[in-house]
């Protein structure tokens, strides 16, 4: 296992290593961040607002005089876990449907594909607006919205992959042996899609981070006093001309997280190394 890990690291190009470092860093922050936070996430600790970095507030304070460091540490938890959860869910669901469509073909394929078209063609942010208006904002709902938004995209990719694989001889061999569709899907087809699917999960992860920040722009983000990284940027945006850390830090966090994930994905893609 450790041997595999070291050889994996050794084979990773420099950009991939940078990406991996960034991703691991943010994962660690997401896991441990809140316990490192010097202040409670909603505490009004600074008399001033948008103050600069100081020994009390390492990253300054936000528009209400709250500690930016603490808020970013908490915010990255929401962003990373929501995005990761939604990306994994979207890929699992999309790929399941893709396998079903590719193996059953015919009407099943047509109906699933049309249903996916339906979801892809409804603008996701407006869809989110409707859902939040109907059910109120909550973490499960945000997760659901982000998942629903990216299922069709994954479905398209996974279906194309599965279609190519289903046509290959080893699937014919399994069919000729008399294997059932579940075995064919899970044992024959799926293992050969793992790499591109991993890359796609990474890509969806980046998209979800950006979607969440878009949703928080529209006021549909995480419940206060908590905030995901996008909401942090949004709520402090009036400090943009003052160059407030309260907006720069979460924006940088989003950027490093997404760039890191992208670099890692590119490095993982076979032949994807630029």
């Amino acid at each position, binding site marked *: 296992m450790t041997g595999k890990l070291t050889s994996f690291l050794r084979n990773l190009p420099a950009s991939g290593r940078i990406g991996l470092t960034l991703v691991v860093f943010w994962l660690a922050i997401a896991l441990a961040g809140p316990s490192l936070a010097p202040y409670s996430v909603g505490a009004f600790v600074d008399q001033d607002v948008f103050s600069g970095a100081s020994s009390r507030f390492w990253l300054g304070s936000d528009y209400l005089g709250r500690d930016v460091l603490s808020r970013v540490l908490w915010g990255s938890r929401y962003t990373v876990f929501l995005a990761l959860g939604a990306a994994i869910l979207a890929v699992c669901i999309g790929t399941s449907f893709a396998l079903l469509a590719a193996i059953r073909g015919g009407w099943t394929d047509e109906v699933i594909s*049309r249903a996916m078209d*339906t979801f892809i063609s*409804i603008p996701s942010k407006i869809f989110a607006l409707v859902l939040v*208006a109907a059910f109120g904002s909550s973490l499960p709902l945000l997760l659901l919205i982000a998942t629903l938004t990216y299922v069709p995209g994954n479905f398209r990719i996974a279906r194309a992959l599965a279609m190519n694989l289903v046509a290959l001889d080893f699937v014919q061999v399994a069919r000729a042996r008399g294997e059932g569709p579940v075995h064919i899907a899970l044992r024959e087809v799926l293992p050969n899609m793992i790499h591109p699917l991993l890359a796609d999960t990474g890509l969806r992860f*980046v998209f979800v981070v950006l979607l969440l920040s878009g949703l928080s722009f529209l006021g549909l983000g995480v419940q206060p006093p908590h905030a995901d990284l996008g909401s942090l940027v949004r709520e402090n945006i009036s400090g943009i*001309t003052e160059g407030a850390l309260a907006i720069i830090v979460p924006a940088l966090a*989003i950027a490093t997280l997404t*760039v890191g994930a*992208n670099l890692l994905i590119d490095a993982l893609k076979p032949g994807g*190394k630029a």
Partner: protein
Amino acid sequence: MSAPEKPQSSLAKLVPLIGKRVLSSLLTLFLVSLVIFTVSGLLPGDAAQELLGQSATPEQVASLRHEMGLDRPAHVRYVDWLGGIVRGNAGMSYVANMPVGQIISNRLPNSLTLAGITAVISTVIALTIGISSAINRGGKLDSMLNITTLSLVAMPEFLIATLGVLVFSVKLLWLPSIALVTPDASWGQMLRSMALPVFSLTCVVVAQMARMTRAAVADQLDRPYVEMAKLKGVPFSRIVLFHVMPNAVGPVVNAMALSLSYLMGGAIIVETIFNFPGLASLMVNAVTSRDMPLLQSCAMIFCATYLALMLVADIVAILANPRLRA
């Protein structure tokens, strides 16, 4: 082996395909309307309540509701609306007291112009970046462009737009910070007021398109026919233009169509920041005011745009590929 194809016959072969796609598109449109109707049915309140606002008394709401026909059961309203659509009548807006068609015809040209200009610009940029990257695979230019597209991907849309405004409008005073599109504006004014929205949207879509283009072109560059062309002494630029592009155009157009379908309905953030009177904000408005006929029609337009783009992408792929044409 098949007989040589006459060019007309290959076009004629597209017709049944288009027919089939239009039929399945109708199915998708129907599904979309059903989803929108169902989901919006979950929304609290209705048009009457929202129209009367905070100050409404229950009697007022009830009477307005009756007048709007909102007191009829949901399925009756849906069938009614569907019947109207089939006859080409999108119905009356509950809120604006105008035919939905008229409201939309005020906004649709704006959205189409914005999407169109962005599509042209971002396609050109994406193709340039994608192709330059692909032919320099592994080179310095490739990694530089890769970093550029990555950084673009990493920026939340609203941040790009806001920074654009701060730099180009507030600091430099070059461009208007809001899109003041009037129907009687000159082309110059129009372009000026669209510059920043187009810039922001281009940043959003171009990265993904460029990356897809790179992948598609790089894939073709590995094909034996490219080696054959090299061995014929064909200059590289000619290989890319005349050999690779006709083959890469299918996947590239597909990726572009996917990205571009975002430009209509996905432009909500850009429309908000630049105060752009487009369809996305109209749809949000329809959600807020519970204006179902308007909401449905907007959703239909977005869906139709997406399907049309996909169809165009498929047709281009077929026209570019004689194998599919036959």
